[in-house]
Every structure is written in C-alpha cells, then in structure tokens.
C-alpha cells in the first residue's frame, strides 16, 4: 500500500469573508424585496430553495453513487461532497418564508377557486396545504437522516476506522437511491410543478434531477479544483481525475438536454391543450427569448466547450464550465418559476439577484465552518491510495 502524504491545512478565511459578503448582500435584498413586493420575493425564494436543494441533495446522491458503483477515482473528493452535503440543513430554513407565503405562491391554496374548478377539486386530496407540509417535512427529515447515514458517519473514520464501514455504507446507499428518487420527485412536483396546478408532466422529476446532478457535480468540481490548486488536498491530484469530472459534466449536459427535449417533444407532438399551455406561457412575449436561451445556455455552450478531449482535463476550462453550469441551473429555475409570477413577459431586476447571492453565500459559509478541523481527504478510507493513484 502506498502511504498517503496529507497534512491538514486550514481553509483560508477569504472563503468566509466572500461568503459573508454575499450572504449579507443577499439578505438585505431579500428583506427589501419582501417589504416592497412580497409576491416577487417569494417566487424568487423558490429558486433559492430549489437551488440549495439541488446542491445538498445532489451531493448526497454523489456520495451514494460512489459507494454503490465502487468508484475509485472520486474517493479523494468524497470529503468535499460530505462537507457540501451539510447544506441540506439550510433547506428547511429557506422554506420557512415560503410556507408563510403559500397563498401568494400556489393557486391551489385558494379553496374558493379550487371548489369552482373540477380539475383542481379532483387534485385536492394531493394538493392541499396540510399534505403539502407533511410531504415537505418528511422530505427534509429524510434528507437529515441520510445526511447522517451517508456523510456524517464518515468523518470519524479518519481517526478510528471501523470494520465493515464500506460494506454497511454500500447497503445504506442502495436503500438511499429509491428514497432519493422519490424525495426529489416529490419536491420537484410540489415546489415547481404545482406552481401551475393544472399542468402535469410525468418526466418532470427526472428533469429536475438532471439539473440537480449537473449542478451538484459542477459545485464539487469547483471546490475540488480550487482546493487542489491551493494545496489543500495533500500532494495534489492529477489530470485523469479532472478528466472524469469533465466527462461526467459532459454526459449530464447531454442527459439534461435529452430529458428536457423528451418532455417538450411529447407535449408538442400530442398537442393536448391541458399540457401545451405550460410551454405556451413560456413562449409569451419576451419569455420566448428566455426559452430559446435555455437551449443555448444549458446545452449548446457546455456541449461545445466540453466536446474536445483536452477540455475535459483542463482545469481552466473545467472551472469556467462548472461556473457556467451553476449559472445555467439558476437560469433553469428562473425559467421554471418566474413565468407563473409574470405571465406576459420576462422580468429581471435587483430582486432576482438575491437567490444567487444567498445560495452561494450559504454554501461558502457552511462549507467553511463545517470543514474546520476536518481532513479534506478521507484518510481513513483504505481505498484512498487507489483513488489518488487513479489513471485512465
């Protein structure tokens, strides 16, 4: 076995400073927003919630995936995902202002309207405030439980490795996968799809998942490259690991396009008025520009940048495209949420900045504090040397 040369290095407080700055700025804007136009602020709150959920839940998913498929290459970065997964605890916090504004956000909470509308009346057993809150709470609790099972348990392994740790965690991951799929689908349906309660699309959960995976991976890629370049990951990690990040990002860029197009093609072809109106809303006025933009931003640009082989292992281009995918996910959520707020055309102002600022600030701050006094490599994992010496 190859010995690992790792000396813990505390994260620079620059990270914290940037995080606090972003969060404070975002917080002020959000506060102003809720005072001036609480409706618009609340809709932006959904973007914030769903972005943070993508990163947190997505990190848990990446951990589970690593255990399940027995991946070697990502072992040196698992700690990053484990630390990043802490943001699942921010999700309920961000959902609080939304719960306070359910009436502004969701048409189906207006009982008088629902009783007049046969479609909504029939959906009432599912779409009612009580069951909605239960579902979200259950989802949050499940996220916490699996945070502990998949991420939290791992930190102690550095000093006192336990027997069968991997074997048990593999089983937990297997259990986690279906639960993850269900939780994520319910959250996507509840918080995003039910904004237009007449609409339904069975592929919608997968659509949100495709964005979740690529943004979680992009954030992990960013952390991995920055930490690695600044010497936080021991002796450093070579190009072949980067290549895997690039290849996966590329794959999931395509996956997102495939799912997004499948959803569109079926609805377009069947041409049923109860399905098409959702796209028609996104084709009204300036929304058409945003809708075309999503093809370019979420698919064509990352596809073109990641297509050449060298791009996938070049940290410069990877950093660029990872940032780009973070932006693309915000854009995607904006496109999913805001048309319900503003039917006639796209709106963008200072208030739309707060989800971005708060989300990035929160991630940085939580990462900083949670990474304190922790090894950034899972040095107790017997697979680590194999992971570090990974070659394609």
């Amino acid at each position, binding site marked *: 076995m190859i010995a690992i040369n790792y000396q813990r290095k505390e994260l620079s407080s620059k990270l914290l400073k940037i995080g606090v700055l972003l969060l404070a700025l975002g917080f002020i804007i959000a506060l102003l927003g809720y005072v001036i136009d609480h409706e618009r602020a609340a809709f932006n709150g959904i973007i914030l919630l769903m972005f943070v959920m993508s990163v947190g839940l997505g990190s848990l998913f990446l951990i589970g995936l690593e255990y399940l498929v027995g991946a070697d290459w990502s072992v040196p970065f698992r700690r990053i995902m484990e630390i990043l997964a802490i943001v699942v605890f921010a999700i309920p916090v961000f959902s609080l202002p939304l719960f306070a504004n359910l009436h502004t956000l969701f048409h189906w909470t207006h009982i008088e309207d629902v009783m007049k509308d046969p479609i909504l009346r029939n959906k009432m057993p599912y779409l009612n405030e009580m069951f909605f809150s239960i579902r979200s709470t259950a989802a949050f609790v499940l996220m916490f439980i699996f945070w502990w099972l998949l991420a939290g348990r791992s930190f102690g392994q550095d000093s006192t490795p336990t027997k069968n740790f991997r074997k048990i965690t593999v089983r937990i991951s297997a259990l986690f996968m279906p639960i993850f799929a269900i939780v994520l689908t319910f959250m996507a349906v509840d918080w995003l799809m039910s904004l237009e309660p007449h609409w339904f699309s069975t592929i919608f959960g997968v659509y949100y998942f495709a964005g979740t995976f690529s943004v979680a991976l992009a954030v992990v890629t960013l952390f991995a490259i920055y930490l690695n370049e600044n010497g936080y990951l021991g002796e450093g990690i070579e190009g072949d690991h980067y290549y895997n990040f690039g290849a996966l990002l590329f794959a999931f860029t395509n996956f997102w396009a495939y799912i997004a197009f499948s959803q*569109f093609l079926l609805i377009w*072809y069947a041409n049923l008025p109860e399905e098409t109106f959702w796209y028609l809303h996104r084709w009204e006025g300036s929304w058409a520009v945003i809708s075309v933009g999503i093809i370019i931003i979420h698919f064509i640009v990352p596809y073109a940048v990641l297509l050449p*082989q060298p791009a996938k292992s070049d940290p410069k281009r990877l950093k660029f495209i990872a940032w780009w995918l973070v932006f693309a996910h915000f854009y995607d959520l904006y496109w999913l949420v805001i048309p319900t707020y503003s039917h006639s055309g796209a709106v963008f102002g200072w208030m739309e900045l707060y989800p971005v600022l708060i989300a990035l600030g929160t991630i940085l701050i939580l990462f900083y504090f949670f990474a304190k006094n922790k090894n950034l490599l899972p040095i107790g994992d017997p697979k680590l040397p194999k992971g570090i010496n990974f*070659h394609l």
Partner: protein
Amino acid sequence: MENKIIYGVTGIFDTPDEIISAVKQVKSSGFERFDVHTPYPIHGMPKAMKLGTSPLGYFALVFGLTGAFAAFALMTYLMGYNYPLIISGKPFIPIPAFIPVTFEVTVLLASVGTVLAMLFLLFKFPNNSHPLHDTNYMKKVSSNKFGICIEAKDEKFSKMEVIEFLKKIGAKDIEVIYYDNDALNFKINIFEWKFVAFLVVSALVVSGATYIVLNKLMFAPPFNWMMGQHRIDAQVESKFFGKDNFSMRVAPAGTVARNTNQFKFSGQPELAEAKLINPLIPTEENLRKGMKKYDIYCSPCHGYHGIGDARLNGQFPNPPSLHSEKVRNWGDGHIFYVITEGQNSMPSYSSQLTNEEKWAIVLYVRALQRAMNAKEEDLK
C-alpha cells in the same frame, strides 16, 4: 533471406509496473518511434508514452456534422418542398420532429465514419500484414507478457546500442525483427474463387433458411377475409345478370329520386321553361348545397366553373360551356329540364337528385354565370 530489412528491436517485461517504468526510460532517452504491446490496456500508459490526442476526434466531428446537416436538409427538402405533407396538424417543416432523426443520423455517421477512417486511413486497411506478426514476441505479448519495440525508423536507432539499452533497463528475450518488402506488400486477393464461392453459398443458405422459416414454418394466412366476400365489385364483368354482363345496373326507365314525383314536362322543354319557377331563394345555405351537388354530379363533365374543362375532357363528347349566350338566356325551368331529362349525350339525373337539389344546382349555375359575366354594378 537476402531481402531482409531490419524493422526494430523488441524486449519483454513481466509486469505492468515494469513496462510503465521501461516506457518512461525509453521516452526520456529520446526515442520517438517505439510501440508497446500488452495483453490488456494498462492504466496510465498513454501518459507514460506521452501520446498526443488522436486525430480521430476530428473525423468524428466532421462526420457527425455532415450527418446532422444532411439529415436535417433532407427532411426539410422532402417534407417542406418535395412532397409537402401535413402530419398530425404540424407545420410542413416540423423542426422538433426532425431532432430525433437528426440526432440518430449524427451518431450513425460519426461512429461509422470514425471506424472506417480508423481502418482505412490509420490502419491502411486492405493491407493487413505487419512485421511483428508471427514472431515469438507477438506470441508472448498476446498471452501474458508486456513488450516494447523500438523501431529502426527512429533517428537514434542503432542495432547494437538499442540492444544494450534494452538490456540495461531490464528487458528479457531481446529479439531483432526483420521483414522483407514482398511480405509486407502482400495483399490478400479478396476475389479468390474459394472466398467468393463461400460468400455466395452462405448468402444462399441464409436467405433460403430465412425464406423457409418465414414463409413456410411460421406462415400465417393474412387477414384478407374481408376482401374475399361474395359480392360483385363495381366496374367489373359479371355473369350474374345474364344479358349484358355488366355488374353495375342501370336504373329502370322512369326511376325518380326518393320523395320526388314523376316529371310532368317530359319532352316539353319550352313548357317546362314557361311553367317552372325556382322555389328557392339564393341564400348562402342554398348556394352551398347547390355547389356541393354541382361539384359531385356536374363538375366531372362541365368542370368546377362550368366552362367544360373537366377531368373527363377528351374521353367523352366535350360538353358545351354553361356560360353561353343561349344558356344564360334560358329560364331556370330549362336548366331544370336538362338536369331531369338529360340532353343528347348528357344523361338524366332524375334518379339521383331530388327536385330541391336540382333547384339548388340551378341557383348555383346562375351564380357561376353571373360571376363569369359580371356587370359593372356587380363589382360595386
């Protein structure tokens, strides 16, 4: 043999780690033309050999783009211009429906093109011989050893030095490989009769077996019982009605349409013209009805506009124009008379059209006439 030229020097190693470190030493000693042969892919080998990126990626790009544009252009031309068809209410050029096909053709052309480019351009396909074939070295590296071959083409190559060098870095079974030009340029003759015969026989066997399986063993009669009814098809000879062998029967003389009485003015067109007046007024509804019936019963001969330019033109005595001075000056009753009784080679329509339908047609014929001979004030 005299004809022998030196190809290179080979050496054998036992483990993947040894070969990796050997490759690194070969590389750092400045050799450029060498190759490594291993029974399975070794992780990190491309890096140790410092191989650049393969040009195949560009082939894939070019072929893929060709596929994408070709597929898209073909569909656009066919669906939009060559044979425009509306499918499930979509526009003639339904771009979203093109995307799956475009994607598939892109992938198809990129993959097939890349493989062919690899075979023909990089492997120089029809030529399949290589100096290392049938050597002891090849036997070993294709079972459980790892070999390296430094080629004579290398600028730094000199036989003795390379042998010494390989020894120094720990290679075993060092061999010098020779080849002769004839062997290298030997091309297999793909038209050799045994090979061609084999192809023909296997094609016959496969297609014969397929034929027997599909048409004999798995044969199920097609669902054609609806075609095999005991009825007489239109326009077909039939012995059933002994006399004339026509399957289509002519209505007996004096047949009238349902709810219609016998025509009172048979053989008296002038009287009909004087006595009969059109009971219908030219409402849109009546005109539409007239148009419908006219298009069904009259247009095959007289044409949609009554000019006589119809689809039967030339196969039947050409009917006169309905816009002639004569017909325009006829009273409505006369046209009604012609429809009911027929005129010379024009048959009677009394068995097909009710009186009301005939009057509607008359209205429509009047409208056609007026449209063709519009007066100044009609345009206002």
